[in-house]
């Protein structure tokens, strides 16, 4: 599998240069958000706002009022926890075309609780006027820039940084999910880095004779509930959601709401952080520890089908991409 180095950096620079109304804002995490090159090459398009996210959020609202489309770069968690009031009053309510680029979503940071955005999707999707996107591979990181900037209103994006695998060939489009497999036993719905785990699990499940239907979600809001319901109705045993997020308020909740409102009775297993904070550690360790990995997904599928597949860790490591990951530098701050 191809690994792409810093896909955001090049994609943002190319997009910004084509659109003079785009501004690059940073809150003291410039190299951490891969915009250091942009800052150095295009200082007149770069605004350093320091460690002051509340001001940055309202300031961006003012820039939006002046006709600019500011891209705010920080770790996802810093774009909503501290400046939530400003996010609502200065950005979401007035539908400013502010693009919130949230790096290190969920447990992709070893920074522990203070750095881990584990309820960002829940918070953002409940805000009226907000669009919520999530990138799951290098192609989506590259295309999320233009996709987000096409929205007439504020957008929050979960961005992957560093060395990112390329899973998809076609760009992310707002509102469109990817149908990755059309099996008939179990529906698996994933987003972001969870999709890569599901791909591993699927390879093993296919060999074990389980027919998986797999959807990759790119747009948490607006959420295509009807399509989810259609797919859920097409499988025998039920639905598993796997998300790099709390199971409350995110993908699992969205699917549950869709099924309930449609009156479609299907069992649902929600994998993700189970009403818990996480601690600091490497991404593979945290995914295993909190049950966000391919093995957890296999076990969930077994619970739904009532049949053990015999798939163990060894079987999954055969399709694991760990070797690729370990070749890249550890997720530093």
């Amino acid at each position: 599998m191809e690994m792409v180095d810093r896909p955001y950096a090049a994609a943002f620079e190319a997009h910004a240069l084509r659109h003079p109304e785009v501004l690059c804002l940073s809150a003291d995490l410039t190299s951490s958000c891969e915009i250091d090159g942009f800052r150095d090459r295009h200082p007149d398009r770069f605004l350093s706002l320091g460690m002051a996210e509340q001001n940055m959020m309202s300031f961006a609202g003012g820039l939006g009022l002046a006709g600019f489309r500011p891209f705010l770069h920080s770790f996802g968690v810093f774009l909503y926890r501290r400046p939530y009031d400003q996010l609502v009053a200065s950005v979401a309510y007035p539908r400013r075309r502010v693009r919130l680029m949230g790096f290190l979503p969920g447990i992709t940071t070893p920074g522990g609780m203070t750095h881990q955005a584990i309820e960002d999707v829940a918070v953002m999707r409940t805000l009226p006027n907000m669009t919520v996107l999530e990138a799951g591979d290098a192609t989506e990181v590259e295309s999320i820039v233009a996709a987000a900037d096409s929205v007439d209103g504020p957008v929050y994006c979960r961005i992957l940084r560093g060395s990112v695998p390329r899973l998809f060939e076609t760009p992310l489009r707002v509102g469109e999910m990817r149908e990755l497999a059309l099996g008939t036993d179990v529906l698996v719905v994933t987003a972001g880095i969870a999709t890569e785990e599901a791909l591993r699990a699927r390879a093993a499940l296919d060999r074990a004779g389980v027919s998986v239907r797999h959807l990759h979600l790119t747009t948490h809001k607006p959420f295509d509930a009807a399509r989810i319901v259609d797919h859920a109705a097409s499988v025998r045993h039920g639905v598993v959601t796997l998300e790099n997020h709390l199971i409350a308020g995110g993908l699992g909740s969205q699917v549950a709401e869709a099924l309930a409102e449609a009156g479609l009775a299907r069992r649902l297993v929600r994998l993700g952080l189970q009403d818990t904070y996480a601690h600091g550690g490497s991404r593979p360790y945290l995914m295993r520890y909190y049950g966000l990995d391919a093995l957890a997904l296999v076990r969930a599928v077994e619970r739904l089908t009532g049949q053990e597949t015999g798939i163990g860790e060894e079987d999954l490591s055969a399709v694991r991409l760990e070797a690729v990951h370990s070749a890249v530098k550890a997720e530093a701050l």
Partner: protein
Amino acid sequence: MRNEKSTEEIARGIRRRVFEHSIRNNGGYLSQACSAAEQFAFLYNEALTLGPSTRPMVPPPFAGVPSAANPDYVTGAGYNGPAAPEYDRLFIAPAHYALVAYACLIETGRMAPEGLEQFNKDGSSVEMIGAEHSPGMEVHNGTLGIGLSTAAGLAWGRKRKGETGRVCVFMSDGEVQEGQIWEAVQAAVHHRIDNLWALMDVNRQQCDGAMDDVMAVGDIAAKLRAFGAVVAECDAHDIPALREAAATPHEGRPLIVLAHSSPTQGMEFLRRRFPRLHYVRFRSPEERQEMNEAIAAELGIPPVDLGEH
């Protein structure tokens, strides 16, 4: 657009309208009119370069919040004139001064007196805490401390676009208890945003009472100067002094004018309520009548005919 009235007359009119409205409606933001009448009159009649209002004299009813499904949404900014490059923009950061702002719009011919009858009525856009869609408002500021940041962003953007109009924020001193104010000042100074200025009503009052009792903020002027802003201070009720302070040069830096005011200016009867002045209610019909007569006498106007009220 300049009004035919003098700034002093407009200030008197603001106090009178807020007083009459509060007596009729059994309470209101009286002390905000006392402290800020001259400041609003000065902004609208002299300091700001504004075009004529683009909105109906009687504000239309609430027409929905901003959403993709509400394409006809407009803010209340049109009451301050069009958002043309050469015109100034005004944010009223403490939206609790809305009643004072509406009274000023009436006094300056931008809103009909009937508009105030819709104040705080269900279905009206003339809301008690000024909303984006309320007359004279352009952004939500009911959550205190966000106005200066938004104005700094707008001012930076306007400067980048070469617009000559400036951005002004009417602020309150209580807001400086919010950390965001200081983030905003440091950002405006760092980015040399000098088409931004603020007029701060320093009345030393906040919702719970006197600021010194609730949370002392120390020497606001010294703190702002330490952050790099240009600060001018004046008597908020002395219009020539306001003129002089607002004319302070501030190239490369934001200007903040501290207008030291009395929360009972023109209505000294309210001293009896000190320090609970944020929102004055009447505790009995007798008190209401007593206040009606006493303050009317101070303002040199007849008491409000309460009739059936």
